[in-house]
């Protein structure tokens, strides 16, 4: 069976989520939106998936690989703009062997089966969607995450001191290091490889992967990724200049393939390409 998966392009309400990569590749409880959709399509019986990506298709290609991880054959197609499911069917569909509609062409702007929680309408929607997904995030292909008490999930190789206060619901990813006396939760997510310093308090917030949160800090109602703090309630953001308070543990590498693609497009005049791909499809932004 075949299916088309449409990756979301630019969404003006959540610019910070686009900083590190395309939205479908944004970290989400140790996985990505793309991975959750591929698991879902595989569970529906799909064997071939065409992924349409208008924003940084190179990053999507790298993430999806051949699809063997999900038992799929995957083809990633770069598009100049985000197609609707109907446009995608018309352009890439045809022939036999498709999943029944609407699963034959789906847009990944929510988590599978959670159409009532569109993720990219605001930071609050993103936060709410992730909270709602915690119970379903341990998909059949995942190992290593365990529920140590009701509503408290912890990934493998994470270090949790005896005096840490974990308040459900909360999610602590893989290889996370928590300092003594931390308070995590309620409604907190610490993504993979994050380090939270002693005495810090993380409440109603998400700490991104590879992010350092300093001793005694307090993060509430926020998305903390690298050195950026976004208040998901009002959308305000802050870049923290003090590395002992909040900083990335790994600098994102530039996608050289993507850079060459944009330069090539600029030279051939095929698109307003030296702008980031997301800007290129949303000139009003």
């Amino acid at each position, binding site marked *: 069976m075949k299916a088309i998966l449409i990756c979301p392009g630019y969404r003006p309400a959540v610019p910070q989520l686009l900083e590190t990569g395309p939205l479908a590749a944004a970290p989400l409880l140790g996985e990505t939106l793309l991975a959750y959709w591929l698991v879902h399509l595989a569970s529906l019986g799909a064997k071939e998936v065409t992924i349409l990506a208008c924003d940084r298709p190179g990053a999507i290609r790298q993430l999806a690989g051949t699809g063997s991880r999900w038992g799929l054959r995957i083809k990633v197609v770069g598009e100049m703009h985000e197609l609707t499911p109907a446009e995608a069917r018309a352009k890439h569909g045809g022939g036999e062997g498709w999943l029944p509609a609407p699963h034959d062409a789906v847009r990944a702007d929510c988590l599978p089966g959670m159409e009532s929680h569109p993720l990219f309408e605001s930071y609050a929607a993103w936060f709410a969607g992730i909270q709602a997904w915690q119970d379903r995030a341990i998909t059949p292909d995942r190992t290593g995450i365990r529920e140590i008490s009701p509503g408290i999930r912890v990934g493998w190789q994470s270090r949790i001191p005896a005096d840490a206060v974990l308040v459900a619901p909360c999610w602590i990813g893989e290889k996370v290091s928590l300092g003594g006396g931390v308070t995590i939760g309620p409604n907190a997510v610490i993504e993979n490889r994050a380090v939270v310093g002693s005495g810090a308090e993380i409440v109603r917030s998400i700490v991104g992967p590879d992010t350092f949160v300093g001793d005694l800090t*307090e993060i509430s109602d926020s998305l903390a990724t690298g050195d950026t703090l976004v208040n998901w309630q009002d959308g305000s*953001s*802050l870049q923290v200049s003090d590395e002992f308070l909040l900083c990335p543990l790994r600098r994102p590498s530039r996608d050289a393939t993507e850079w060459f693609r944009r330069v090539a497009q600029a030279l051939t005049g095929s698109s307003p390409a030296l702008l980031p791909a997301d800007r290129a499809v949303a000139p009003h932004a």
Partner: protein
Amino acid sequence: MKIENESDTLRISELRDLDEDRVLELSRGIRRALRPDVRAIELDLSQVRSIDSDGADMLVAIHDGVNRMGFMPAWRVVNPVPGVRQFLELVRLHRLFEILPARNATAA
């Protein structure tokens, strides 16, 4: 920078930076203006565009200096821009300084 006494509140406004010179000036100004009946000190940070750990350190120094003089007023930060508010919350200064979204909110 403007420092004025209004009833039992000492209001500090037109603060633009929280650098060392400004904070020394602010500290001296507060000491001069403090009266025994002052119950609250209100810092209007609406014109401060950004703050870092040095700025936060200076706010704490002013707070501690006044308290060491024997005054124990309530401290308020009024109308900070979102980034400044976020930073104050990150370093937990909202536990020391009540953060009010707008100056007239003190009446509420």
